[in-house]
Protein backbone atom coordinates (compact mmCIF):
# COMPACT_ATOMS: atom_id res chain seq x y z
CA UNK A 1 0.00 0.00 0.00
CA UNK A 2 1.40 3.34 -1.00
CA UNK A 3 2.35 6.23 1.21
CA UNK A 4 0.31 9.33 0.51
CA UNK A 5 2.34 12.47 1.07
CA UNK A 6 0.70 15.90 0.90
CA UNK A 7 2.74 19.01 0.14
CA UNK A 8 0.89 21.85 1.81
CA UNK A 9 1.51 25.25 3.39
CA UNK A 10 -1.53 27.42 3.90
CA UNK A 11 0.23 30.45 2.49
CA UNK A 12 0.36 30.82 -1.26
CA UNK A 13 3.48 31.20 -3.34
CA UNK A 14 5.91 29.63 -0.87
CA UNK A 15 7.06 26.74 -3.03
CA UNK A 16 4.55 23.90 -2.74
CA UNK A 17 4.41 23.00 -6.42
CA UNK A 18 8.15 23.53 -6.83
CA UNK A 19 8.69 21.19 -3.86
CA UNK A 20 6.08 18.63 -4.91
CA UNK A 21 7.61 18.42 -8.38
CA UNK A 22 11.19 18.03 -7.13
CA UNK A 23 10.21 15.69 -4.30
CA UNK A 24 8.28 13.35 -6.60
CA UNK A 25 11.07 13.43 -9.18
CA UNK A 26 13.66 12.69 -6.51
CA UNK A 27 11.74 9.67 -5.25
CA UNK A 28 11.32 8.33 -8.78
CA UNK A 29 15.00 8.93 -9.54
CA UNK A 30 15.81 6.68 -6.59
CA UNK A 31 13.76 3.86 -8.04
CA UNK A 32 10.42 4.37 -6.27
CA UNK A 33 7.30 4.28 -8.43
CA UNK A 34 5.74 7.68 -7.77
CA UNK A 35 2.64 9.58 -8.85
CA UNK A 36 2.25 13.30 -8.30
CA UNK A 37 -1.28 14.77 -8.31
CA UNK A 38 -2.29 18.42 -8.76
CA UNK A 39 -5.17 19.35 -6.42
CA UNK A 40 -5.31 22.98 -7.52
CA UNK A 41 -8.41 22.71 -9.68
CA UNK A 42 -8.86 25.79 -11.83
CA UNK A 43 -5.36 27.19 -11.19
CA UNK A 44 -3.24 24.25 -12.18
CA UNK A 45 0.55 24.66 -12.22
CA UNK A 46 2.04 21.24 -11.65
CA UNK A 47 1.81 20.35 -15.32
CA UNK A 48 3.85 23.45 -16.24
CA UNK A 49 6.52 22.82 -13.62
CA UNK A 50 6.81 19.19 -14.71
CA UNK A 51 6.97 20.15 -18.38
CA UNK A 52 3.95 18.10 -19.44
CA UNK A 53 1.48 20.88 -20.21
CA UNK A 54 1.37 19.99 -23.89
CA UNK A 55 0.45 16.39 -23.20
CA UNK A 56 -2.57 16.82 -20.93
CA UNK A 57 -5.63 15.13 -22.40
CA UNK A 58 -7.62 14.07 -19.35
CA UNK A 59 -7.33 15.36 -15.83
CA UNK A 60 -8.13 14.58 -12.18
CA UNK A 61 -11.72 15.83 -12.44
CA UNK A 62 -12.36 13.77 -15.58
CA UNK A 63 -11.31 10.66 -13.66
CA UNK A 64 -13.47 11.53 -10.65
CA UNK A 65 -16.50 12.01 -12.88
CA UNK A 66 -15.81 8.79 -14.74
CA UNK A 67 -15.19 10.61 -18.01
CA UNK A 68 -11.79 8.95 -18.31
CA UNK A 69 -9.88 6.15 -16.66
CA UNK A 70 -6.88 6.83 -14.47
CA UNK A 71 -4.71 5.11 -17.04
CA UNK A 72 -5.87 7.53 -19.71
CA UNK A 73 -5.28 10.56 -17.52
CA UNK A 74 -1.86 9.73 -16.03
CA UNK A 75 1.04 11.25 -17.95
CA UNK A 76 4.35 9.42 -17.87
CA UNK A 77 7.40 11.57 -17.27
CA UNK A 78 9.83 11.52 -20.21
CA UNK A 79 12.90 11.34 -18.03
CA UNK A 80 11.87 8.82 -15.37
CA UNK A 81 9.49 6.03 -16.32
CA UNK A 82 8.78 5.50 -12.62
CA UNK A 83 7.14 8.90 -12.44
CA UNK A 84 3.58 9.78 -13.47
CA UNK A 85 1.68 13.04 -13.28
CA UNK A 86 -2.06 13.59 -12.82
CA UNK A 87 -2.93 17.12 -13.86
CA UNK A 88 -5.77 19.20 -12.44
CA UNK A 89 -8.59 20.59 -14.50
CA UNK A 90 -8.14 24.17 -15.62
CA UNK A 91 -11.71 24.87 -16.66
CA UNK A 92 -13.57 23.59 -13.63
CA UNK A 93 -13.26 24.79 -10.05
CA UNK A 94 -12.62 23.13 -6.72
CA UNK A 95 -16.29 22.23 -6.20
CA UNK A 96 -15.75 19.56 -8.84
CA UNK A 97 -13.70 17.61 -6.30
CA UNK A 98 -15.70 15.32 -4.04
CA UNK A 99 -14.35 13.47 -1.02
CA UNK A 100 -15.63 10.15 -2.32
CA UNK A 101 -14.21 10.80 -5.77
CA UNK A 102 -10.81 11.80 -4.42
CA UNK A 103 -10.73 8.77 -2.15
CA UNK A 104 -11.49 6.46 -5.05
CA UNK A 105 -8.75 7.92 -7.25
CA UNK A 106 -6.18 7.89 -4.45
CA UNK A 107 -7.03 4.27 -3.64
CA UNK A 108 -6.51 3.37 -7.28
CA UNK A 109 -3.19 5.24 -7.35
CA UNK A 110 -2.09 3.69 -4.06
CA UNK A 111 -2.60 0.24 -5.51
CA UNK A 112 -0.21 0.95 -8.36
CA UNK A 113 2.42 3.32 -6.92
CA UNK A 114 4.74 3.37 -3.91
CA UNK A 115 4.34 7.07 -3.26
CA UNK A 116 1.45 9.37 -4.13
CA UNK A 117 2.47 13.00 -3.76
CA UNK A 118 -0.46 15.41 -3.47
CA UNK A 119 0.30 19.00 -4.49
CA UNK A 120 -2.11 21.07 -2.42
CA UNK A 121 -3.48 24.45 -3.45
CA UNK A 122 -2.96 27.40 -1.12
CA UNK A 123 -5.53 28.17 1.58
CA UNK A 124 -7.52 25.93 3.88
CA UNK A 125 -10.68 25.46 1.90
CA UNK A 126 -11.94 22.50 -0.01
CA UNK A 127 -9.02 21.82 -2.37
CA UNK A 128 -6.45 22.07 0.41
CA UNK A 129 -8.66 20.09 2.77
CA UNK A 130 -9.08 17.22 0.31
CA UNK A 131 -5.40 17.23 -0.60
CA UNK A 132 -4.44 16.64 3.05
CA UNK A 133 -7.42 14.54 4.13
CA UNK A 134 -6.09 11.15 3.05
CA UNK A 135 -2.42 11.82 3.76
CA UNK A 136 -0.07 9.61 5.75
CA UNK A 137 2.71 12.17 5.81
CA UNK A 138 2.90 15.89 5.15
CA UNK A 139 5.57 18.24 3.87
CA UNK A 140 4.70 21.64 5.35
CA UNK A 141 6.36 24.21 3.13
CA UNK A 142 7.20 27.45 4.90
CA UNK A 143 9.05 30.63 4.03
CA UNK A 144 11.10 32.11 6.86
CA UNK A 145 8.71 35.00 7.36
CA UNK A 146 5.95 35.67 9.87
CA UNK A 147 2.80 35.29 7.80
CA UNK A 148 3.99 32.07 6.21
CA UNK A 149 4.90 30.66 9.61
CA UNK A 150 1.51 31.52 11.07
CA UNK A 151 -0.29 29.96 8.11
CA UNK A 152 1.82 26.82 8.42
CA UNK A 153 0.94 26.65 12.08
CA UNK A 154 -2.74 26.79 11.16
CA UNK A 155 -2.23 24.00 8.66
CA UNK A 156 -0.47 21.89 11.30
CA UNK A 157 -3.56 22.25 13.47
CA UNK A 158 -5.70 21.04 10.59
CA UNK A 159 -3.38 18.12 9.88
CA UNK A 160 -3.78 17.07 13.50
CA UNK A 161 -7.55 17.28 13.50
CA UNK A 162 -9.20 17.37 10.08
CA UNK A 163 -7.62 14.38 8.36
CA UNK A 164 -8.84 10.82 7.99
CA UNK A 165 -6.08 9.61 10.26
CA UNK A 166 -7.04 12.08 12.97
CA UNK A 167 -10.73 11.30 12.70
CA UNK A 168 -10.15 7.56 12.86
CA UNK A 169 -7.53 7.78 15.58
CA UNK A 170 -5.15 5.95 13.23
CA UNK A 171 -1.98 7.57 14.36
CA UNK A 172 -0.83 11.05 13.42
CA UNK A 173 -0.05 12.34 9.98
CA UNK A 174 3.74 12.55 10.09
CA UNK A 175 4.76 16.19 9.71
CA UNK A 176 7.96 17.45 8.07
CA UNK A 177 9.10 21.06 7.87
CA UNK A 178 10.45 22.26 4.54
CA UNK A 179 11.90 25.74 4.80
CA UNK A 180 12.08 27.34 1.34
CA UNK A 181 13.48 30.58 -0.11
CA UNK A 182 16.01 30.72 2.68
CA UNK A 183 18.42 33.62 2.36
CA UNK A 184 21.32 33.39 4.85
CA UNK A 185 22.44 36.97 4.18
CA UNK A 186 19.06 38.36 5.18
CA UNK A 187 18.93 36.08 8.20
CA UNK A 188 22.30 37.44 9.30
CA UNK A 189 20.95 40.98 8.95
CA UNK A 190 17.94 40.05 11.06
CA UNK A 191 15.51 40.68 8.20
CA UNK A 192 14.47 37.06 7.92
CA UNK A 193 13.59 34.40 10.48
CA UNK A 194 16.33 31.85 11.05
CA UNK A 195 15.94 28.09 10.87
CA UNK A 196 15.96 27.94 14.66
CA UNK A 197 13.27 30.64 14.92
CA UNK A 198 10.96 28.72 12.62
CA UNK A 199 11.69 25.39 14.28
CA UNK A 200 10.92 26.89 17.66
CA UNK A 201 7.54 28.21 16.56
CA UNK A 202 6.38 25.24 14.52
CA UNK A 203 8.00 22.48 16.58
CA UNK A 204 8.09 19.81 13.89
CA UNK A 205 11.14 17.94 12.52
CA UNK A 206 13.09 19.79 9.83
CA UNK A 207 13.27 17.85 6.58
CA UNK A 208 15.16 20.38 4.51
CA UNK A 209 16.17 23.99 3.94
CA UNK A 210 16.01 25.11 0.32
CA UNK A 211 18.00 28.28 -0.36
CA UNK A 212 16.55 31.12 -2.41
CA UNK A 213 17.71 30.41 -5.93
CA UNK A 214 17.36 31.93 -9.35
CA UNK A 215 17.37 28.41 -10.72
CA UNK A 216 13.81 27.91 -9.50
CA UNK A 217 12.46 30.43 -12.00
CA UNK A 218 14.63 29.22 -14.88
CA UNK A 219 13.65 25.64 -14.23
CA UNK A 220 9.99 26.46 -13.97
CA UNK A 221 10.19 28.27 -17.32
CA UNK A 222 11.89 25.24 -18.82
CA UNK A 223 9.42 22.79 -17.30
CA UNK A 224 12.18 20.92 -15.47
CA UNK A 225 11.90 20.27 -11.71
CA UNK A 226 14.75 22.10 -10.01
CA UNK A 227 16.09 18.91 -8.38
CA UNK A 228 17.45 17.98 -11.78
CA UNK A 229 19.64 21.08 -11.87
CA UNK A 230 22.82 19.81 -10.26
CA UNK A 231 24.56 23.19 -10.57
CA UNK A 232 22.02 24.89 -8.37
CA UNK A 233 22.14 24.91 -4.57
CA UNK A 234 18.38 24.54 -4.54
CA UNK A 235 18.62 21.41 -6.67
CA UNK A 236 21.19 19.87 -4.37
CA UNK A 237 19.15 20.85 -1.33
CA UNK A 238 16.14 19.01 -2.76
CA UNK A 239 18.31 15.95 -3.32
CA UNK A 240 19.33 16.07 0.34
CA UNK A 241 15.69 16.46 1.30
CA UNK A 242 14.62 13.34 -0.58
CA UNK A 243 17.51 11.40 0.92
CA UNK A 244 16.51 12.43 4.42
CA UNK A 245 12.89 11.52 3.76
CA UNK A 246 14.07 8.04 2.80
CA UNK A 247 15.96 7.71 6.06
CA UNK A 248 19.47 8.86 5.21
CA UNK A 249 21.40 11.26 7.42
CA UNK A 250 22.46 14.35 5.54
CA UNK A 251 23.84 17.50 7.18
CA UNK A 252 22.00 20.70 6.24
CA UNK A 253 23.96 22.67 3.69
CA UNK A 254 23.42 26.19 2.38
CA UNK A 255 22.51 27.58 5.79
CA UNK A 256 25.38 30.01 5.97
CA UNK A 257 26.27 32.95 3.83
CA UNK A 258 28.49 32.24 0.90
CA UNK A 259 31.87 33.58 1.83
CA UNK A 260 33.14 36.23 -0.54
CA UNK A 261 36.80 36.24 -1.54
CA UNK A 262 37.58 38.91 1.01
CA UNK A 263 36.24 36.97 3.98
CA UNK A 264 37.85 33.78 2.72
CA UNK A 265 41.25 35.46 2.69
CA UNK A 266 40.89 37.34 5.91
CA UNK A 267 38.64 35.00 7.85
CA UNK A 268 35.50 36.07 9.71
Amino acid at each position, binding site marked *: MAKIVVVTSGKGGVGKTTTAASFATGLAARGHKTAVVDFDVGLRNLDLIMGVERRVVFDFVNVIHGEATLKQALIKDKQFENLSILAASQTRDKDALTAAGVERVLDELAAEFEYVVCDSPAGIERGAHLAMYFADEALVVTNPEVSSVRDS*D*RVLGLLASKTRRAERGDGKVREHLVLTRYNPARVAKGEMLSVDDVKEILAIPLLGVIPESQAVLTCSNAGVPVIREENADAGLAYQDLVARFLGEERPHRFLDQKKGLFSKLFGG
Partner: protein
Amino acid sequence: MTRSRNALEFKGRWLSITRVRVLDADLDAIRAQLAAFARQMPAAVKGMATVIDSEVDCELAALLGELRAVGMQPLGVSEGPLAERARALGLAVLSREAGKATAPSADTPVPADPRPARAAAQPSPAAAARIVETPVRSGQQIYAQAGDLIVLNTVSPGAEVIADGCIHVYGKLAGRAIAGARGDERARIFCRKLEAELIAIAGIYAVAEQIKDGPRGAPAQAYLEHGRLKIEPHKV
Protein backbone atom coordinates in the same frame (compact mmCIF):
# COMPACT_ATOMS: atom_id res chain seq x y z
CA MET B 1 -51.35 2.55 54.10
CA THR B 2 -47.60 3.20 54.21
CA ARG B 3 -45.31 3.33 51.18
CA SER B 4 -42.09 1.32 51.25
CA ARG B 5 -40.21 3.88 49.10
CA ASN B 6 -40.20 7.68 48.85
CA ALA B 7 -41.44 9.28 45.69
CA LEU B 8 -38.71 11.92 45.78
CA GLU B 9 -35.08 12.07 46.82
CA PHE B 10 -33.44 15.36 47.80
CA LYS B 11 -29.75 15.67 47.10
CA GLY B 12 -27.45 18.64 47.44
CA ARG B 13 -25.82 19.62 44.18
CA TRP B 14 -23.45 22.30 42.97
CA LEU B 15 -24.66 23.86 39.78
CA SER B 16 -22.79 26.21 37.52
CA ILE B 17 -25.01 29.28 37.13
CA THR B 18 -24.14 32.62 35.60
CA ARG B 19 -25.59 35.79 37.01
CA VAL B 20 -26.75 38.16 34.28
CA ARG B 21 -26.80 41.71 35.57
CA VAL B 22 -29.00 44.04 33.58
CA LEU B 23 -27.12 47.32 33.13
CA ASP B 24 -29.26 48.74 30.34
CA ALA B 25 -32.84 47.60 29.81
CA ASP B 26 -32.79 48.51 26.09
CA LEU B 27 -33.77 45.28 24.37
CA ASP B 28 -32.01 46.12 21.11
CA ALA B 29 -28.74 46.65 22.93
CA ILE B 30 -29.28 43.44 24.87
CA ARG B 31 -30.05 41.47 21.72
CA ALA B 32 -26.94 42.77 19.96
CA GLN B 33 -24.67 41.98 22.90
CA LEU B 34 -26.09 38.48 23.28
CA ALA B 35 -25.59 37.82 19.58
CA ALA B 36 -21.98 38.91 19.76
CA PHE B 37 -21.37 36.79 22.87
CA ALA B 38 -22.97 33.75 21.26
CA ARG B 39 -20.82 34.22 18.17
CA GLN B 40 -17.61 34.37 20.19
CA MET B 41 -18.30 31.54 22.58
CA PRO B 42 -21.03 29.34 21.17
CA ALA B 43 -20.16 26.38 23.37
CA ALA B 44 -20.46 28.40 26.59
CA VAL B 45 -23.70 30.14 25.65
CA LYS B 46 -25.62 27.06 24.58
CA GLY B 47 -27.72 25.88 27.47
CA MET B 48 -26.09 28.33 29.90
CA ALA B 49 -28.11 28.38 33.12
CA THR B 50 -28.68 31.97 34.19
CA VAL B 51 -30.22 34.04 36.94
CA ILE B 52 -31.26 37.57 36.02
CA ASP B 53 -30.25 40.31 38.38
CA SER B 54 -31.68 43.75 37.81
CA GLU B 55 -31.82 46.92 39.90
CA VAL B 56 -34.46 48.37 37.61
CA ASP B 57 -37.73 47.11 36.28
CA CYS B 58 -37.72 45.93 32.68
CA GLU B 59 -39.70 43.86 30.21
CA LEU B 60 -38.98 40.49 31.79
CA ALA B 61 -40.91 38.38 29.28
CA ALA B 62 -39.12 40.01 26.35
CA LEU B 63 -35.76 39.66 28.11
CA LEU B 64 -36.38 35.97 28.69
CA GLY B 65 -37.17 35.66 25.00
CA GLU B 66 -33.85 37.25 24.04
CA LEU B 67 -31.87 35.00 26.38
CA ARG B 68 -33.62 31.90 25.18
CA ALA B 69 -33.17 32.94 21.53
CA VAL B 70 -29.38 32.52 21.88
CA GLY B 71 -29.76 29.23 23.72
CA MET B 72 -29.43 30.34 27.33
CA GLN B 73 -31.72 28.91 30.03
CA PRO B 74 -32.91 31.58 32.45
CA LEU B 75 -33.86 29.82 35.66
CA GLY B 76 -34.96 32.73 37.74
CA VAL B 77 -34.37 36.26 38.94
CA SER B 78 -32.73 37.79 41.97
CA GLU B 79 -35.00 39.40 44.53
CA GLY B 80 -35.66 42.95 43.38
CA PRO B 81 -37.77 44.95 40.91
CA LEU B 82 -38.29 41.90 38.69
CA ALA B 83 -39.63 39.65 41.44
CA GLU B 84 -43.31 40.37 40.79
CA ARG B 85 -43.08 39.73 37.06
CA ALA B 86 -41.05 36.59 37.70
CA ARG B 87 -43.60 35.13 40.06
CA ALA B 88 -46.34 35.85 37.55
CA LEU B 89 -44.35 33.85 34.98
CA GLY B 90 -43.66 31.06 37.40
CA LEU B 91 -39.91 31.70 37.58
CA ALA B 92 -37.77 31.19 40.64
CA VAL B 93 -37.01 34.24 42.75
CA LEU B 94 -33.69 33.89 44.56
CA SER B 95 -32.59 35.78 47.60
CA ARG B 96 -29.70 38.16 46.96
CA GLU B 97 -27.55 36.28 49.42
CA ALA B 98 -27.49 33.17 47.28
CA GLY B 99 -23.97 32.77 45.99
CA LYS B 100 -22.20 36.05 46.59
CA ALA B 101 -18.74 36.55 45.11
CA THR B 102 -16.27 34.61 47.21
CA ALA B 103 -13.21 36.83 46.67
CA PRO B 104 -13.14 38.67 50.02
CA SER B 105 -12.25 42.33 50.24
CA ALA B 106 -10.00 43.50 53.06
CA ASP B 107 -12.75 44.62 55.45
CA THR B 108 -15.41 41.90 55.18
CA PRO B 109 -14.77 38.54 56.74
CA VAL B 110 -15.25 35.59 54.41
CA PRO B 111 -18.83 34.41 55.01
CA ALA B 112 -19.17 30.69 55.70
CA ASP B 113 -21.78 29.43 53.28
CA PRO B 114 -24.56 27.93 55.41
CA ARG B 115 -26.53 26.67 52.42
CA PRO B 116 -24.24 24.47 50.33
CA ALA B 117 -27.18 22.98 48.44
CA ARG B 118 -28.03 26.29 46.82
CA ALA B 119 -26.74 27.06 43.36
CA ALA B 120 -23.71 29.34 43.55
CA ALA B 121 -23.28 32.17 41.04
CA GLN B 122 -19.56 31.47 41.10
CA PRO B 123 -19.11 27.95 39.80
CA SER B 124 -16.63 25.82 41.68
CA PRO B 125 -14.78 23.61 39.20
CA ALA B 126 -16.80 20.46 39.30
CA ALA B 127 -14.99 18.72 36.47
CA ALA B 128 -11.46 17.32 36.48
CA ALA B 129 -8.87 19.48 34.78
CA ARG B 130 -8.61 19.06 31.05
CA ILE B 131 -5.06 18.26 29.99
CA VAL B 132 -3.74 18.98 26.50
CA GLU B 133 -0.30 17.66 25.56
CA THR B 134 0.04 18.69 21.94
CA PRO B 135 0.71 22.24 20.76
CA VAL B 136 -2.44 24.33 20.40
CA ARG B 137 -2.09 25.57 16.83
CA SER B 138 -3.23 28.81 15.28
CA GLY B 139 -6.97 28.74 14.65
CA GLN B 140 -7.71 26.03 17.22
CA GLN B 141 -10.01 26.77 20.11
CA ILE B 142 -10.02 24.65 23.27
CA TYR B 143 -12.68 25.15 25.92
CA ALA B 144 -12.45 23.40 29.28
CA GLN B 145 -15.94 23.52 30.64
CA ALA B 146 -16.51 23.65 34.41
CA GLY B 147 -12.85 23.15 35.20
CA ASP B 148 -9.24 24.11 34.66
CA LEU B 149 -7.30 23.79 31.44
CA ILE B 150 -3.70 22.56 31.52
CA VAL B 151 -1.61 22.82 28.37
CA LEU B 152 1.71 20.97 28.49
CA ASN B 153 2.92 22.60 25.30
CA THR B 154 2.79 25.88 23.41
CA VAL B 155 -0.25 27.96 22.55
CA SER B 156 0.44 29.49 19.13
CA PRO B 157 -0.50 32.99 18.04
CA GLY B 158 -4.04 32.84 16.68
CA ALA B 159 -5.04 29.99 19.02
CA GLU B 160 -7.60 30.35 21.82
CA VAL B 161 -7.58 28.56 25.15
CA ILE B 162 -10.67 29.02 27.28
CA ALA B 163 -11.65 27.64 30.68
CA ASP B 164 -14.35 28.18 33.25
CA GLY B 165 -11.59 27.74 35.81
CA CYS B 166 -7.88 28.49 35.60
CA ILE B 167 -5.55 28.13 32.67
CA HIS B 168 -2.06 26.72 33.12
CA VAL B 169 0.31 26.74 30.16
CA TYR B 170 3.60 24.91 30.76
CA GLY B 171 5.08 26.53 27.70
CA LYS B 172 4.77 29.68 25.67
CA LEU B 173 1.37 31.37 25.70
CA ALA B 174 1.15 33.36 22.47
CA GLY B 175 -2.54 33.21 21.63
CA ARG B 176 -5.60 34.29 23.59
CA ALA B 177 -6.29 32.98 27.07
CA ILE B 178 -9.75 33.42 28.57
CA ALA B 179 -10.16 32.14 32.12
CA GLY B 180 -13.22 32.29 34.34
CA ALA B 181 -15.30 32.17 31.15
CA ARG B 182 -18.56 31.94 33.08
CA GLY B 183 -17.75 34.66 35.53
CA ASP B 184 -15.48 33.08 38.14
CA GLU B 185 -13.40 36.02 39.28
CA ARG B 186 -11.05 33.76 41.24
CA ALA B 187 -9.75 32.18 38.03
CA ARG B 188 -6.12 32.78 37.14
CA ILE B 189 -3.86 32.29 34.17
CA PHE B 190 -0.34 30.93 34.52
CA CYS B 191 2.28 30.45 31.83
CA ARG B 192 5.98 29.83 31.42
CA LYS B 193 6.46 32.47 28.75
CA LEU B 194 4.01 35.29 28.28
CA GLU B 195 3.51 36.49 24.71
CA ALA B 196 -0.25 36.47 24.73
CA GLU B 197 -2.37 38.37 22.24
CA LEU B 198 -5.15 38.72 24.80
CA ILE B 199 -5.65 37.81 28.47
CA ALA B 200 -9.13 37.76 29.99
CA ILE B 201 -10.49 36.73 33.37
CA ALA B 202 -14.22 36.77 34.02
CA GLY B 203 -14.71 39.21 31.17
CA ILE B 204 -12.01 41.68 32.20
CA TYR B 205 -9.40 41.68 29.47
CA ALA B 206 -6.19 43.23 28.20
CA VAL B 207 -4.69 42.99 24.72
CA ALA B 208 -1.01 42.64 23.86
CA GLU B 209 -0.70 46.39 23.36
CA GLN B 210 -1.74 46.92 26.95
CA ILE B 211 0.39 44.09 28.35
CA LYS B 212 3.53 45.22 26.54
CA ASP B 213 5.07 46.80 29.63
CA GLY B 214 4.46 43.65 31.62
CA PRO B 215 6.46 40.46 32.01
CA ARG B 216 6.66 39.51 28.32
CA GLY B 217 8.77 36.51 27.46
CA ALA B 218 8.92 35.43 31.11
CA PRO B 219 6.91 33.23 33.48
CA ALA B 220 3.78 35.13 34.45
CA GLN B 221 0.55 35.01 36.34
CA ALA B 222 -2.67 36.93 35.66
CA TYR B 223 -5.44 37.41 38.21
CA LEU B 224 -8.17 39.81 39.24
CA GLU B 225 -7.71 42.04 42.24
CA HIS B 226 -10.78 44.11 43.15
CA GLY B 227 -12.02 43.74 39.61
CA ARG B 228 -8.76 44.89 38.02
CA LEU B 229 -6.64 42.62 35.90
CA LYS B 230 -3.14 42.14 37.22
CA ILE B 231 -0.45 40.52 35.11
CA GLU B 232 2.75 39.94 37.01
CA PRO B 233 5.98 38.04 36.65
CA HIS B 234 5.99 34.82 38.57
CA LYS B 235 9.13 33.83 40.36
CA VAL B 236 9.33 31.29 43.12
